[in-house]
């Protein structure tokens, strides 16, 4: 093993590091050194800078100011990061945040193994060992998304340990996990550490009781270090008996609580008289199934007025779904619920006025200020101006919101945001308050204050409170609680009664006891099978570029696409339908031009002229026009595209041999159509004059007299190349696939990268030795393949359904499609570099590519006819060249050598676009 950990006394040395996100300071001039070979805990609530610090130390985040040395090297050096990447493992915050939820446990671990260059046999051996040690072995083929929170975290740990890291960073690995799994998780970590004592571990947690297990603690608040010591020393320094209390006492030394504690209310006893009317909330046998998965299994309870009732359990145990059923957000599969004796009815707006709901995911409208958020909700509940003013005057000081009134909700500290959420939920003075995990991520002191407010509401205003939480100490503050696990209520009673009944001392122990009863087969974990690791050979220096890593991303992306076939089928069927509609729909022949005659002469000559005109077959005759007003009206309402006006003296002029005049009035609004109509009219006019034999009756004089003039002096012999029959389909058919083969792949590609950014799996790229090109091109290969598949489908349709034969070189077309696919996906990659969210990616990809693709690539107007900037855009757009190639190969029947110019130009786009995207991609998060 590497000797580094023992040689240097600290695994990470942080000097004068500050980090900001816009106006918010996450870390403020932090200097710190974490000892090597130890288990170091970072404690403090959300938003104090723990995650930022971990991101910086692991190299996932980019350093702004200061210096960080991890494993003896400067983390601002890309070279050092590349070298240490294989010695560090980072598990980000959030359940299974860096896992691929649609892949199975085995597939996830295979992927991580490949990233570290492990061969097939080595991967298999490691996966077997790790999953056996963590108890995941029986579930190897289960998708990660279908695992419980505890199992997800174990899988995350396996993924982190697959390459025997020297430095393991775990960011809140147990938040939201049930108490039994939490305990098992820490036991597992202890086992690993006893196997590999030289490994350093940096871990953060929001549960203060867990912090007791760590060897060394760093207490953080507001971007600064409050204290640094072992748990025992910390307790001693502050004169407290738990780490939690020690932390609170450290905090109190720093800042004064901004909230006036409603002390008096706390003393009030819990209500025991529930005799007034029906219970506030009653549920009987509530069950919710999603497919074959039972989220909530026959849950029943009764909550009386003014009671604080708690649901205790891990993430995903069914707390949220139960609450959604109570609010009517989602219908129960079976069972029923009543609120104040009334069955829950989603349509009943009056019932909603009596309920205040604070959902787990709702984080207020960040773009509105505190005042605007409160006002918006007051208005939506129609409190009226006076009542709104009174409620605001009451709530704002009570929840300590005065200093923040005009601040945007998004920039508030989490604790304040939760207070605002609560204020919003009670603005209309509801009788029932349903709170879904309102305190997760809030610091202990703020949580305390929050509970004081809840107690105050319940005792003084008799508000019924139904709250869910995964903190045991909060459970103790409820009047009664239900312990929930895997959709079932294990027990419901007063918290102290539950503890006493199991003969335990803490609620957590009682909970675990109940869980073990409910599932006695709980997998044994933490045996010593992890120990074999040090027989592995030390890997050689990391190669700069690894095809295996690149293909690891390709394989993974391909698996993910296969798991979501809807998207794929959608784009194949969608493009096929579009091809057919567009090919038949866009016809360049203008036919059946609606026209009417305005014959002011009504002479035999005029009628003869007009009848010759109608014979031409291009026009669709409408009833003739009677007078000038009618002419104007019918042109103005768009009924006529053409009006043919014959002046009153037409016949006379013709007979006298004078120059006669016919006026054609063309609707000029659509200039394209007007141009075509103009040429048809001229053609029909010439046709009439040429038909001297038939129209001799009336026009003989005219034509005979002027015949010499009309004889051609020279003739023009047009030869229509490529499409001699002048049909639309051979011209349009081959030009539709180029549009579809750009738009669909570009958007799919852009969304695929933006999605990784949004859900957080991009962390795997940040903290592993993956290169930028390996990540992007690895993903790109999959979409290139999809594009080629789509190309085959569209080509078959063009040849069979549209009946346009491929006359030119198939090789050129296929090669062109390949180059074009690289260009389209490269463009998608480049767009995704601009976007941080999927919404922006979709927007940017659509808005920036639809116009040049449809308008400037020669589909209707040849690029050679475009002008100004449009021509430049057209020339620099890959569709132009593939369009030329597709039309060339299908309609013009050109071969490889004639198309080589197009191919060469097309070849330039993909690599350039992809290279730009690779250069724009950052290897670190900002």
């Amino acid at each position, binding site marked *: 093993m590497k000797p580094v950990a023992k040689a240097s006394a600290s695994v990470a040395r942080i000097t004068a590091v500050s980090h900001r996100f816009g106006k918010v300071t996450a870390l403020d001039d932090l200097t710190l050194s974490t000892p090597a070979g130890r288990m170091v805990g970072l404690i403090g609530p959300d938003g104090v800078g723990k995650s930022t610090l971990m991101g910086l130390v692991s190299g996932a985040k980019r350093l702004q100011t200061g210096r960080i040395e991890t494993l003896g090297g400067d983390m601002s050096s890309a070279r050092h990061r590349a070298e240490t990447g294989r010695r560090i493992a980072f598990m980000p915050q959030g359940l299974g945040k860096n896992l691929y939820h649609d892949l199975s446990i085995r597939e996830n671990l295979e992927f991580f193994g490949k990233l570290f260059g492990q061969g097939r046999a080595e991967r298999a051996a490691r996966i077997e060992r790790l999953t056996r040690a963590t108890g995941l072995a029986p579930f190897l083929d289960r998708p990660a998304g279908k695992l419980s929170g505890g199992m997800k975290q174990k899988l995350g740990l396996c993924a982190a340990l697959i390459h025997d890291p020297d430095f393991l960073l775990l960011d809140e690995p147990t938040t939201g996990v049930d108490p039994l799994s939490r305990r098992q998780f820490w036991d597992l970590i202890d086992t690993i550490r006893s196997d590999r004592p030289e490994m350093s571990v940096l871990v953060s947690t929001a549960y203060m009781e867990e912090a007791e297990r760590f060897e060394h603690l760093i207490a953080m608040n507001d971007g600064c270090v409050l204290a640094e010591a072992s748990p025992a020393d910390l307790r001693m320094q502050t004169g407290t008996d738990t780490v939690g209390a020690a932390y609170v006492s450290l905090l109190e030394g720093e800042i004064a609580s901004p909230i006036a504690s409603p002390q008096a209310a706390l003393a009030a006893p819990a209500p025991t008289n529930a005799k007034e009317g029906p219970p506030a909330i009653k549920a009987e046998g509530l069950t919710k199934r999603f497919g074959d998965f039972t989220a909530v299994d026959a849950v029943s309870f009764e909550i009386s007025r003014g009671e604080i009732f708690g649901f205790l359990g891990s993430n995903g145990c069914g707390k949220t779904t139960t609450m959604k059923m109570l609010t009517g957000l989602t219908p129960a599969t079976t069972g029923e619920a009543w609120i104040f004796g009334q069955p829950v009815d989603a349509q009943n707006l009056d019932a909603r006025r009596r309920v205040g709901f604070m959902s787990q995911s709702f984080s207020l409208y960040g773009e509105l200020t505190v005042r605007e958020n409160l006002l918006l909700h007051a208005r*939506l509940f129609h409190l009226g101006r006076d009542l709104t003013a009174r409620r605001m005057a009451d709530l704002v000081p009570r929840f300590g919101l005065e200093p923040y009134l005009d601040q945007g909700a998004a920039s508030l500290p989490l604790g304040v945001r939760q207070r605002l959420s609560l204020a919003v939920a009670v603005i209309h003075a509801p009788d029932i308050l349903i709170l879904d995990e309102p305190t997760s991520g809030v610091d202990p002191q703020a949580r305390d204050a929050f509970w004081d407010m809840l107690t105050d509401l319940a005792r003084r205003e008799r508000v019924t409170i139904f709250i869910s939480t995964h903190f045991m100490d909060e459970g103790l503050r409820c009047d009664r609680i239900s312990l929930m696990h895997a959709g079932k209520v294990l027990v419901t009673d007063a918290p102290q009664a539950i503890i006493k009944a199991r003969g335990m001392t803490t609620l957590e122990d009682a909970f675990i006891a109940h869980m073990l009863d409910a599932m006695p087969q709980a997998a044994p974990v933490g045996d010593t099978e992890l120990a074999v690791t040090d027989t592995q050979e030390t890997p050689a220096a990391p190669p700069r570029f690894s095809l295996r890593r690149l293909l690891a991303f390709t394989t993974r992306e391909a698996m993910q696409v296969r798991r979501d076939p809807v998207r794929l089928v959608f784009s194949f069927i969608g493009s096929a339908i579009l091809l057919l509609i567009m090919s038949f729909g866009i*016809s360049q022949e203008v036919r059946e031009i609606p026209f009417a005659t305005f014959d002011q002469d009504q002479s035999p000559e005029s009628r003869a002229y007009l009848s010759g005109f109608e014979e031409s077959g291009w026009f669709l005759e409408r009833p003739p026009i009677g007078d000038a007003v009618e002419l104007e009206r019918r042109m103005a309402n768009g009924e006529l595209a053409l009006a043919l006006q014959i002046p009153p003296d037409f016949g006379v002029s013709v007979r006298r041999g004078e120059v006669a005049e016919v006026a054609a009035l063309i609707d000029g609004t659509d200039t394209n159509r007007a141009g075509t109509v103009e040429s048809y009219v001229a053609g029909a006019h010439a046709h009439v004059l040429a038909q001297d034999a038939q129209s001799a009756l009336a026009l003989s004089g005219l034509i005979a007299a002027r015949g010499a003039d009309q004889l051609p002096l020279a003739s023009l012999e047009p030869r229509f190349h490529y499409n001699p029959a002048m049909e639309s389909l051979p011209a349009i058919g081959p030009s539709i696939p180029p549009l579809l083969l750009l738009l669909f792949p570009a958007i799919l590609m852009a969304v695929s990268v933006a999605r990784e950014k949004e859900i957080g799996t991009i962390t795997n790229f940040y903290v592993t030795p993956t290169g930028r090109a390996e990540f992007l091109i690895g993903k790109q290969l999959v979409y290139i393949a999809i594009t080629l598949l789509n190309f085959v489908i569209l080509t078959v349709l063009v040849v069979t359904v549209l009946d346009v034969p491929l006359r030119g070189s198939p090789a050129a077309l296929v090669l062109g499609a390949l180059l074009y696919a690289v260009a389209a996906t490269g463009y998608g990659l480049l767009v995704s570099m601009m976007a941080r969210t*999927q919404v922006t990616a979709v927007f940017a990809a*659509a*808005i920036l590519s639809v116009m040049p693709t449809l308008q400037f690539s020669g589909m209707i107007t040849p690029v050679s*006819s475009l002008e100004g900037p449009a021509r430049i855009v057209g020339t620099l757009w890959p569709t132009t060249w593939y369009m030329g190639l597709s039309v060339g190969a299908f309609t013009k029947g050109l071969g490889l050598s004639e198309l080589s110019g197009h191919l060469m130009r097309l070849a330039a786009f993909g690599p350039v676009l992809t290279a730009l995207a690779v250069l724009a991609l950052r290897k670190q998060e900002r």
Partner: protein
Amino acid sequence: MRQFANIFWLAGKELKSVLGDPVMVILILWSFIIAVILEASGAGDTVYNAAIAILDEDRSMLTRQISHALGPPWFQPPVMIAPDQVAPEMDAGRIMFVLAFPPGFEADVIAGLIPSAQLEVDATAVSQAQLGTDYISNILTSETRAFLSGNPEAPDPALRLELRRAFNPNGNPVWFKSVSSLLNQLSLLTIALTGAAMLREREQGTIEHLMVMPLTPLEIALSKVLANVVVVLAAFTLSLMLVVQGLLQVPVTGSLTLLLTGTTVYLAAAAAIGMFLGTMARSMAQFALLVIMVIIPIIMLSGGMGAIESQPDIVQRLTMVLPSRHFLAFAKAVVFRGASLSAVWFELSLMAGLGLAFFIASLLLFRRSMSLSG
């Protein structure tokens, strides 16, 4: 009353969230300023500016005179070409027409032998090929006649056809292009914005928060339609006045009030389509594919890129359900023909009806998607 107030307050919130995102604002401005200018000024008339080459084996006065007459605005200034260049240039699509004069062309004309000039046409763009051939034929005839009579002015034919264009006398292609380009931007932005607003609220979970308040799905949906219509309408009005009327100098003949009214109706219909797609899609990727599937027909089959009459009957029937087709008909009538309400009420009511249908469909889907997301 209550409902109106709810919609109003919710729409205010939507408005703030759209305008609070700088990327969105930039993309909106890009669409309505840069994109409209690019599209309107870039794409010409069908034969406008076609690339032509002359293969002159006669090198006479007459052939030079004819070549000279082939120029802007219909054609690009002709280039001289060698015989062996004809095929490669046409294969590459750089040249659409090659006019070839045989040796002795002028002499034959003078001798009254009616010689033939050959015209090689790239017929892959059908209408351009047809129109260009007609133009070249006319120019050839009139120039030859002028050459023979020694008079630069061609003599009057006995029966003269006077071609006049109503509503756009000079046939300036920018006019029509600017309106159809506005339509494209309106459609794309409104559909994408409204649909994304719907999806985002669902993905962030804030929709659940709204659903437990005393608000109906109708109010929530209408507030989104309202807010996005207001944003896009403001951008449209600005673009119409500053870009279309100002920079591109396109005259608006009809009533501006009527135009804005009709645009509002269309925007509501487009927003309803956006809502429909937003509630139908399960993920952002699916939504993106749906938007593309809808926007391509809207841009290409609404009459902006080819007349409606020339579509086959079955496609014409399909495009009847595109509100954009009726909007383009409406906008053309009002902007260029100065049509009044009595002339366009039918298009207006079609747009309103289609919008309503999409809106009702998305409301029905809305409830369903809520229960699925839970």
